[in-house]
Structure formats: C-alpha cells, structure tokens
C-alpha cells in the first residue's frame, strides 16, 4: 500500500492539510512544534483507528477522542482520509476515518478484504519508526531490546502460547501423579489379600490358580478380574455376613508383624534424619536446587530473576557449578523420596488389612475393639495422607501395642461364632476379595495409561513447539541479521568493512551483538558511538520492517530519526533509501533543514514530494510551504524584488549542492576541521574534478577506439566549457564574502543572468533524463565510471591494456 493523496482535518494541531505524495517518497520538514509528527499520527489513525504515540508509559490520562481532535473541534469534524494504491487494484482507493467513530474504517465495501491484511499489519505498528524506538532497539539492555523486537514481531503471543502449553503439561502431570498414587493403593490392597509385600502378577496369578483349583476351576494363564471366578461355583453356605477365618487370621498377622514394624521404623528414622538435615538448613537447599535447575533451563544473556546481563555461556557454566555443589542435596532429596514411597506403600498395606479386621469385628459386635482399631486406623490415615501430600516430617508411625491380645480375642470370638470355614469357602472368599481388588486395580491401570499418554502427548507437543519456535525465530533472525549487516555496511563500509553481528534467539529473548573493528562482538552501545547506534537502529528497523510488511504496506515512516548521524553517513542513508528500498514509499519527518536538503539533492524526494511546515498557531495550525525547492523559493523572492534574500538562498543552496557534488565525484577539497566549507572551497574543486573525469573518459574511449563516444564526450565538454566560462565560476567564487556583499547591491536585472548561469551550472552535474546527480562508481579503490541512476550517463574511466 502506498499513499497517493492524503487530507487531514482538525487533527492533532492541524486545521486543514492536503498532501499529494503520489505514491512516492515524501518529506515533511519544519521546526519542532510545527506539526510534523501530527502527520505521522494521522497516518497511524487512518490505518489503525488509534494513535500509538498516545498510548504506553506516561500517557495515562491521554484519551484519543479528547486529545486527538484540534482545539475546540467536534469529533465529527476531525477526520483523516487518503487515496491509497493497493496491489492488484488498478485505481487508488479512498479510505477515511472519523474521530467520533474511530473503530469504523470507511471505504468501499468491495475493497475491505484487500485492506484487511494492511490494517492487520498496521496494527502491529511495523511501519513507523521514531527516534525513541531506535534507542529501544539498540541501546536498551538485552531483556528490553528483546521485548521491543518481540513487540515489533508481535511474538508476545508466541510466549503466551508457550505458557499455556506449560500449564496444560503441568495439569496433566499432576493428574498422572494422582492416578499413579491410586494405582499404588490398589496394588497394596491386592498385596494384602494375597499376603505378600511386593506386587508381582505371577505370584498373584498363582494365588488365583491355587484357590481356583480348590473350587475345581481351570488354570488361568492371564490375570484379570473378569476371569478370577469364571467357571467356579460359590459354596452353597456362603452368606454375605460370613467371616472367613483364614483371611481374618492373615489380616491379623499382617497387623501384628513385629519384624515389619522394626523394618518400617528403620526407614522412618532414616527419613527423619534426612528431613531434619534438609529442613534445618536455613539456606533452603531444596528450593535452591529447584531454582538452580529451573534457572539452567532459562539461561539467556540475562539472569532470569533480576535481569542482570550475563554472557549466555558464562551464566550456564555458573549454574552448572552451583548444581555440582548441590549434588549431596540432590542425593538426599532422592533418597527421602524413595523412603517416602516405601513408607506410603507399607502404611497403605496396613490400612487395607485394618479395614477388613474392623469390618469383621463389627460383625462380631466387638465394639470396644472396633473403637480401638478405628482410632489406630485414623492415626495411620493421617500418616498416609501426610505421605501423599509430601509433607510428612518423619513423625513416629503409630503402632497398636495390644494387637496380639486384641487380635487373639477377635479371632477366638470369630472361631466361636463361625467355626472353621471349609477350604472351598476360604478359597471363594479369597477370590471374591481379589476380584474386587483387581477391578479397582484394572480401573486405575486404564486411567494410568490414559493419563500417561495424555502427559506424553503434552510433553511432545511442548517440546516440538519449542523446537519449532527456535527454528522459525532463528531463521527469521538470521535473515534479518544478514540484511541488517548488508545495510549497515552500506552506511559504514568505509570505516567498518568487517562489520558483522549476532542476532539470535535466546530462549524467549533476543541476543544482539555487533562486531567492533575486529575487536570481537559486543552489545551495540558498549563501544559504538551514538551516531553509529542510530545507524544500527535504522538498519535493524528497516531489515525487520521489510521482512514483516511483506509487500502489503510499502509505506515506511521515519519520524525524526537522524539526530546523531553525521553528514557523510546521512548521504549514505540517502543512497540506502533510494537504492535498496526502491519498492517502498518513505514518509520522512525532520526538523533539520540540512538533512531535508540532502534528501532532495540525493534524489530521495523530488521537489514535489515535500512540504515545509512553519509558524504553527493554536487557532490555524501550521503554515505550509510545499514549494520548498530552492529555485522556486528564489523565484518567489525575486517576484518581491528581494534580491538579497534570493542571493542568500542561491549561495547557501549552492554550498549544499556542491558539497554533494564533491562527495559524489570524489573531488579533493581542502580539509577544514570545523567541517564548514564555503562555496569558494567547493566550486573550483567540483569543476576541476569534472574536467579531469571527462578527460579520463575521453582517453578511455579513445583507447577502446569508440569514436562515437569520444565525439559525444567532446560535445559535452564543449557545452560545459561554455557554461563554466559564462558563469566565470572559478574566479567568481574565490571570495564568497565579497561577492555575497556585492549581491546586496544587485538589482533584479543584474541578478537574473547569475541565476540562469547557476541553474545551467547545476545541470552540468545532473542527468538530463532522470535528474539524479552524477556519481563516481568504484570497484574497490579503483575508479570505474561516472554514472547517473538511470544509466543514461555512463563514462567508462578505464583504458584498454
């Protein structure tokens, strides 16, 4: 998209203004406070419905509808409209936005779909560069710069997505751990039924087959709840409230085992020692270990906690050393976790048996024993919950001291009441209980597999996303970096021919380092001057914007961005804008008239592609001079018979012009350390250089036997000689002061021939076809040719060997 015409009404200090860039580069110059940035804001408002400069830090009480319209103007009468050129649309399309409905984009509906991607890109603010942003891109610390570049790339949404993926993964991990705990509980129940300490499917299958054999069932080769009682019949006397004495005896044994109590106490003591050791350390070693491990994952060029800049490798190495020193803590934590799991398993096993004994005791109406056992069960459940929550501190695991006595009583009463069960009944009861246990186990197996798969999917998704993110961003940064280096070398190739840079993703950040005269790569503001940093900011922005606008927005706005760049490098920037971005339309604002003239003389903007704002008044806004071309301004002075002003403009304009000529043709001008060259310094050298070059070109054409070219050059030489003689320039410009004073006495008729002569003199150094200034082309240090931009002028300077 390019702007063809633009009208602004009652907007940000502008009363009425019409600009006609005609899709070409456009220059807006004027002193501070003359309304230049209001034009930038108007473009912003037109494309986005907002003014980005009125948002962000320090703009809390600034409101668009209240502060964007010009003083006292109604929001309905505050608008910006433009005719824009859109790819694939033959005629310019009119678009408009009015302040009373800033969200409403007014245009012919049939173009809405064409304009949608343009508005989307504009909303990212990727087409406007201000000096403040240059500083943000280049001189800020790594974290802030990363943020600025990420904002421009709009990749904060990438990190938001990453955070969501982490959240989802953690949720699924927690669910998996819970289900894993349930699975262990179900195994503990099975172990209690089978009477073993360790879960082993073969042992359980043997247990099933032993009992099935008693009941006349076939041998099973696969363990599952549906098959446990398949093909066997229930003993006839089975009753729901019967007590199986064999199972009861086994459960009582499980609760009474002294060896087991000792073993558990040994584990508890070891656990307690580790717990005390870790928790008594005021430095919180567990948290430190976790933090260091996390920090290692997040290493970049700054500390993830305090943003202190670090060399990426150095920070990683530092954290690895810290981790090495924490090996003992890590080992202690791992052992503590192991002990916790073992204790948990044993406690669950006890609880399983205890529940069965309490149930049987209730059937036997042994209320006192039931109460005592319930208290014991609550104590164990408290420990069990504490272990599950991972906040167990190693407190003593309660024992039931009278278990032998109480157990004997319960068993005796059971024997008295129910007598010894038959082997078939016992087998049936065992299978019955195991079937129940296995159902719970199988449910948890299914859930476990599902949770495991979901977690695995979440982890693969996250890892793949991170891998893809790094791949896409690295490719983007490499592409941008290459262009950035190419552009910067165009500006500073003469003094930094070996310039190179690193632009790479560092986790969620961006690492930018630049080569400094072969002395290694450093942050941009470490060693480079402010002017060089400005150049870097412009080049980095142009490289990023070019990549991101992707041909949808050809408009790039440079809002007063040349503060610290010196004059020679500004010329290089002119070449950069004119030669490297031919497909783009630049809107350039500046308060610097020298820079404005350079842009004009170097052909970045034409005389029709500029406005000068001045004399801003609160009620009327700025005055506008769109005829800023020097010759037009001189003509205007002469219509008022103001020869001194016209002469002054001619002299100043000539100084700027011949300064550029000398630079373009490589003329040798006597050096002045204050950098202030008069016309007397510049003009003779420019003419002398021109003569030398045309002579060299003639010699070259002769050596190649190109007589036609020789003839053409002789003709040019003859014409220019006449112009040089007519202006008597060499003598005339020796003492500019004398001549300047002399001009003050000139009348209109005296001055007009001087003006015509100078106009002709200017034209000597420009192409008749494209209007660009002639320049010397070099091949390394070798002078190759004198050329113009369109190629009409092409004087070969090299002779045949």
């Amino acid at each position, binding site marked *: 998209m390019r702007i063809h015409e633009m009208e602004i009404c009652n907007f940000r200090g502008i009363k009425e203004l019409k600009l006609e860039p005609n899709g070409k580069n456009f220059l807006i110059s004027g002193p501070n406070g003359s309304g230049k940035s209001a034009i930038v804001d108007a473009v912003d408002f037109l494309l986005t419905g907002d003014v980005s400069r009125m948002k962000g830090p320090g703009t809390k009480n600034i409101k668009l509808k209240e502060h964007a319209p010009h003083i006292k103007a109604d929001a309905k009468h505050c608008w910006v409209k433009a005719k824009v050129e859109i*790819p*694939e649309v033959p005629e310019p399309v009119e678009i408009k936005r009015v302040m009373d409905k800033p969200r409403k984009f007014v245009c012919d509906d049939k173009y809405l*779909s*064409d304009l*949608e*991607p343009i508005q*989307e*890109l504009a909303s990212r603010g990727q087409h406007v560069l201000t000096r403040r942003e240059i500083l943000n891109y280049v001189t800020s610390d790594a974290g802030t710069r990363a943020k600025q570049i990420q904002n421009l*790339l*709009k*990749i904060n*949404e*990438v990190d*938001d*997505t990453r955070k*969501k*993926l982490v*959240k*989802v993964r953690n*949720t*699924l991990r927690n669910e998996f751990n819970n289900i894993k705990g349930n699975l262990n509980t179900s195994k503990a129940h099975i172990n209690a039924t089978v009477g073993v300490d360790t879960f082993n499917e073969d042992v359980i299958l043997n247990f099933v087959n032993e009992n099935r054999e008693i009941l006349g069932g076939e041998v099973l080769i696969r363990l599952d709840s549906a098959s446990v009682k398949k093909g066997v019949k229930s003993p006839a006397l089975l009753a729901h409230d019967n007590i199986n004495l064999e199972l009861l005896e086994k459960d009582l044994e499980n609760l009474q085992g002294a060896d087991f109590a000792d073993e558990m106490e040994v584990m508890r003591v070891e656990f307690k020692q580790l717990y005390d050791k870790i928790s008594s350390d005021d430095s919180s070693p567990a948290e430190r270990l976790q933090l260091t491990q996390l920090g290692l994952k997040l290493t970049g060029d700054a500390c993830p906690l305090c943003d202190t800049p670090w060399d990426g490798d150095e920070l990683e190495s530092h954290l690895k050393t810290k981790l090495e020193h924490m090996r003992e803590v890590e080992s202690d934590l791992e052992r503590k976790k192991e002990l916790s799991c073992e204790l948990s398993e044993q406690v669950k096993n006890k609880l399983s048996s205890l529940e069965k004994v309490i149930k049987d005791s209730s059937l036997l109406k042994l209320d006192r024993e039931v109460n005592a056992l319930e208290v014991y069960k609550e104590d164990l459940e408290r420990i069990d919950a504490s272990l599950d929550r991972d906040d167990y501190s190693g407190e003593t695991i309660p024992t039931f001291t009278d278990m032998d006595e109480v157990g004997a009583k319960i068993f005796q009463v059971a024997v008295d009441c129910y007598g010894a069960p038959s082997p078939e009944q016992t087998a049936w009861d065992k299978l019955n209980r195991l079937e129940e246990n296995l159902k719970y186990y199988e449910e948890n197996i299914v859930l476990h597999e*599902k*949770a495991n*798969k*979901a977690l695995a*999917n*979440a982890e*693969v*998704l996250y890892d*793949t*996303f991170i*891998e*893809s*993110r790094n*791949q*896409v*961003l690295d490719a*983007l940064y490499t592409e941008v970096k290459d262009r950035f280096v190419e552009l910067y070398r165009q500006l500073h190739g003469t003094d930094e021919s070996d310039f190179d840079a690193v632009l790479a993703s560092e986790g969620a950040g961006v690492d930018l380092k630049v080569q400094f005269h072969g002395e290694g790569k450093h942050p941009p503001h470490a060693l480079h001057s402010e002017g060089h940093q400005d150049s870097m900011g412009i080049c980095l922005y142009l490289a990023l914007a070019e990549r991101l606008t*992707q041909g*949808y927005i050809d408009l790039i706005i440079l809002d007063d961005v040349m503060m610290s760049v010196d004059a020679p490098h500004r010329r290089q920037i002119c070449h950069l804008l004119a030669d490297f971005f031919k497909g783009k339309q630049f809107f350039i604002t500046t308060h610097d008239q020298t820079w404005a003239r350079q842009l004009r003389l170097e052909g970045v903007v034409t005389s029709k592609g500029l406005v000068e704002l001045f004399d801003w008044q609160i009620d009327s806004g700025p005055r506008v001079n769109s005829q800023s071309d020097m010759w037009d301004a001189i003509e205007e002075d002469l219509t008022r018979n103001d020869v001194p002003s016209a002469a002054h403009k001619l002299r100043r304009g000539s100084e700027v012009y011949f300064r550029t000529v000398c630079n373009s043709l490589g003329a040798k001008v006597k050096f002045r350390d204050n950098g202030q060259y008069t016309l007397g310094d510049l003009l003779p050298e420019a003419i002398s250089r021109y003569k030398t070059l045309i002579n060299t070109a003639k010699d070259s054409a002769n050596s190649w036997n190109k007589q036609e070219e020789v003839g053409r050059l002789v003709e040019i030489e003859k014409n220019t000689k006449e112009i040089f003689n007519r202006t008597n320039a060499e003598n005339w410009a020796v003492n500019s002061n004398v001549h300047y004073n002399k001009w003050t006495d000139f009348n209109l008729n005296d001055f007009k021939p001087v003006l015509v002569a100078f106009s002709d003199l200017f034209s000597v150094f420009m192409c008749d076809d494209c209007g660009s200034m002639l320049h010397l082309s070099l091949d390394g240090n070798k002078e190759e040719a004198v050329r113009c931009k369109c190629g009409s002028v092409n004087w070969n300077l090299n002779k045949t060997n």
Partner: protein
Amino acid sequence: MGEKEEISKAPTSILDQILDETFQKLENSEDFDSELLLELRKLASEGSLQNDKLLTSILKGDLP
C-alpha cells in the same frame, strides 16, 4: 480472481509459522496420533490453542 484472493489473505504471523512447523513435525513423527493432530490443527485454526481447558481435554482424548 484467484490471485486477488491470495493477496487478500492476512499475512502469516510468526505464531502461525511456528504452529505450522510444529504440526508438520508432529505429522512426520510416527508416535503422534494423527486424529489428535487433526484436533489440534482445528483448535489452532479457530485461534483457541490458548484455551487450556479445551487443549487439556483434547490431549486426554475426552472430546468426541
């Protein structure tokens, strides 16, 4: 007409490029379920990948 429609498409954002690359890698992976991938692509195309509850359900296979 076709060319014009092509131009009118919003440019691919960095996030979309990353997601395209992610899904392509997952498609090339033999271990990742193709139906799940289809669901994820659909979720991303609707701009709902940041809906963590929906994403969790899809990863668990809870959605039809």
